[in-house]
């Protein structure tokens, strides 16, 4: 269902691991959150191109339901049916973008902010 394998950049992997630790969450949970955050933002503004160094191949971590949702959200956004390779690419873009936004939020947060609530805002 996930189509082609997605390979997260090394920097993205580093953020992922950091956030899994910051939030005491599993990697798949952080990935889902990163996807959601990246998907809803205009990720063209984020320098995803810089994340070229391949780091980590994302295993089959998403449930079928989640994959179904992500796939059709992407289709809906692209307004056309897409193949599995395009799907993987779009998902990866969202995830990388989301992770970068997380890092930005983390760096900009003040001592009163609660990280989890901040991620939701």
């Amino acid at each position: 269902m996930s189509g082609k394998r997605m390979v997260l950049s090394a920097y993205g992997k580093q953020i992922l691991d950091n956030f899994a630790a910051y939030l005491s969450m599993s990697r798949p949970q952080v990935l889902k959150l990163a996807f959601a955050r990246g998907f809803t933002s205009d990720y063209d503004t984020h320098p995803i191109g810089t994340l070229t160094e391949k780091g980590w191949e994302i295993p089959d971590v998403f449930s079928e339901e989640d994959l179904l949702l992500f796939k059709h959200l992407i289709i809906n956004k692209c307004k056309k049916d897409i193949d599995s390779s395009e799907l993987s690419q779009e998902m990866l873009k969202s995830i990388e973008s989301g992770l970068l936004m997380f890092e930005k939020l983390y760096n900009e947060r003040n001592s009163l902010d609660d990280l989890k609530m901040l991620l939701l805002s």
Partner: protein
Amino acid sequence: MILKKLILNNYKTYYGHQELNLDIPPQVRSDKNKNIILIGGLNGAGKTTILKAVHYALFGKRGISEMEYKRIFSNVINNHFFDEGGRECYISLIVENDNLEEWELKVKWIFDHNKKVVHENREIAIRKPGSSVGKRSAVNNIDTFNRFIDRKIPYHVAPFFIFDGEEIKEIILRQNSEELKIAIQKLSGLETYKTLLDDLKETKFYLDKKLMNSIGSSKTTNYTQELNRVSIELVELNQKLKAVNQRKIGLEEEIKELKKIRAEKIQLNSKSRESILKKLTACEVNLSQAQKEFNDKFNEQAYIHLLTQPIQELKGRITLEEKERERLHSINSSYSPYKEFLIKLFDGDISPQLTESQRIQLLKNGEEIWNSKADELNREKITIIHDLNKHQFNILKNITIKPLSDLKGIHQRISQLQFDINQFEEEIRNAPESVDIEDENTKIDNLTKMLGEVELRARSFKNKTTALREDKTKYENLLTRSTSNDSNTEDLRAQIEQVNSTIIFLNQYVAEVTKLKAVFIHNEFKLMLSELIRKQDEFGRIEFDVNTYTIRLFNDRNQEISVHDRSAGEMQIISSALIWALTKSSKFSLPMLIDTPLGRLDSYHRNHLINKYYKELSDQVIILSTDTEITKDYIDSITQNSFRQYVLEYNDKLKYTLIRDGYFDLKR
């Protein structure tokens, strides 16, 4: 009443026969507005002796313990006189009552050669108005004498007209005492009505008895006996009920007191280390639960929250596509009968045979005609981009988005709990050890049990009382009916009826008049206090409590100020204002005899007392002053209103006091 004369004969510091003429003729009082008699004397000259002599002449040993009596009166004979061989001394007070009758109250003491009192002798002489000779009689029964005096000048009222200026604050401090209430009631005349009520009740009892005696028949005798029995039982039962009720009140008070102590302890306990620790632990448990709940919900819902908008859009789109799919399906299904019809049609013999292109043309034309019937075809077509089966459609359609407030709520709770934990941590450091309230609990339980029993007894007594009352009414009615023909009893019954209605009327009257008196006292008190007191703004409200006969002071913010917390001087002023109010509401016209009334007061309050108070206080105000009180200003302002002035001169050599007319010599 006014004091006319005090004779001191070899009494204490007064040697020989010395007189203080205290009389102020009515025309002087009314026309010249002179109501003050000023008696000046240094310490030890005999001012207080005069005050005590007047008190003793009127009230004797009342209120004086045996020990005190010995201390005061073993030495009443003048030393100089005793040394000359004198063995008796006396005081004599002549008072004039409101009906112009004169009483001479004389107390004589006889001493042995050891200067020990061997006999005290009291005499009373009463002179009718206009007569110079009175009927003199020895007082053999002091109780009778006391009752007699009390009818004119009640003993309990004494502190309101014979008092030491510096002790007058006692009136305020003893506010709640029973005798003060009695005094106020007597002073304001309410006691008279009570006496009248008692008399009326006695009259009724007498008439009832007479009525019963006049009824002769055995039947009525039985009723009478029964009525007597029931009445006696009722009295006994009422006494029991009263005792039980008192016990009940006592127990309730005890329980209330214990509960108060327990509440104080609990309050202390709620701040103890153990109780805070308990709260802290509970908080920590709640916190960990809330944190788990938050994490679970966050993990499950956070990404859905972020995707809210696109998910809603997706749901909208797939719903639209699903509808489109259904529509296309229904169109396809509607084609099938047409297709079947054409296939069968082309299968038949057609001459000449149709070419393939003709067949296709016909099929297409027919299709258009068929389709033109379906409005659906005219609609804009929707491209289906989501390739979803029914199951997948349902999964996407049923994704629930819970409101973010859900998570926010839990997060807020976590913050609150963390704050509480910090607070408790802080409190634990300063908290006291826990206290034990077991003892109070046991006592309260026991007392409550006792109270329950007492209440049960009270209820049973009450029931019995009700039953007995009914019996009483029954026998009274039976008696009335069985004797209704007797004309003599008719008269008696009419009299009883009259007495009854008078009692009812009087009760109502007393209730009303008490209220009125209280209002009057309240108003006069308030008026005089605001005239006298310096700190005007401090008392926002002054109340004379009608029910408790007490004075209550409130500040400008309506908070009650304790009278006891006022300074001695202020209490003296407050007491003076109360005396004023009571004197003004009194049925008696009382002389005022005041010892060192200004000693403790500052110049402001002195001026006010002299200029606004004593001049109007009563028809006769006798002021006993020291030289320090009597300044030139004082004499100047008091001269206009003082009718007589005496100086008590103590001779150091001869060691006795002589009473001389005139003021202190003012050397300063």
